[in-house]
């Protein structure tokens, strides 16, 4: 069987890629993709921990499903915000959205 640590390293790598996208990229859509990567890393962690640490307790799987659903709700709100900004400014770059100082 594949050891637990492989999954954890994979998840941590995925999380870091997402983190990098959020911190380093300027396009709001790419930042959103980074956030989704972070959430998916969490899902991998949850399912792996469920399988290896406490397989009798279903909480890990249920939590992963919850994260799915909530991520979808977040994406829906995000797309709505992005579209309404893009329609007026022709850009969703975080650098150009600077009416107020950061």
């Amino acid at each position, binding site marked *: 069987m*594949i050891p637990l640590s492989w999954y954890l390293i994979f998840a941590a790598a995925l999380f870091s890629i997402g983190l990098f996208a959020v911190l380093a990229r300027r396009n709001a859509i790419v930042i959103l993709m980074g956030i989704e990567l972070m959430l998916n890393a969490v899902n991998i962690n949850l399912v792996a921990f469920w399988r290896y640490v406490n397989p009798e307790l279903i909480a890990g799987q*249920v939590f992963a*499903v919850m994260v*799915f*659903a909530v991520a*979808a709700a977040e994406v829906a709100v995000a*797309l709505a915000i992005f579209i309404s900004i893009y*329609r007026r400014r022709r850009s969703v770059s975080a650098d150009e959205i600077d009416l107020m100082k950061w």
Partner: protein
Amino acid sequence: MPQEYIPIAVLIILATGLAFLVVAIGHLFGPRRPTQRKGQPYESGMRPFGPGTRRMPVHFYLVAVLFILFDIEVVFFLPWAIVFRQLGLFGLIEMIIFIVILLVGYIYAWKKGAFEWE
């Protein structure tokens, strides 16, 4: 651990190898007479016009967003369906409550005209 995965590794190597082989053979021995018509995205379809990055009505996005929302809720139905018999009446009532809440959102979107074209 690794021995169990040898067949899978063999399969992966064979599959990729075969794919490369087929493409390579076609590339090497096949006749090639490119014409402008052949280079089009859809050779027998409508003639393309305008750039590919055309603006689309914002309505498509609205439908897409609603699709994401209602589509992802299916994820809760699947586990429920699997243990439906053990949960019995209680599970059924819970699921009905869940669907009613979804329905509220659906009726709201409907009345607001999110599904109308024009």
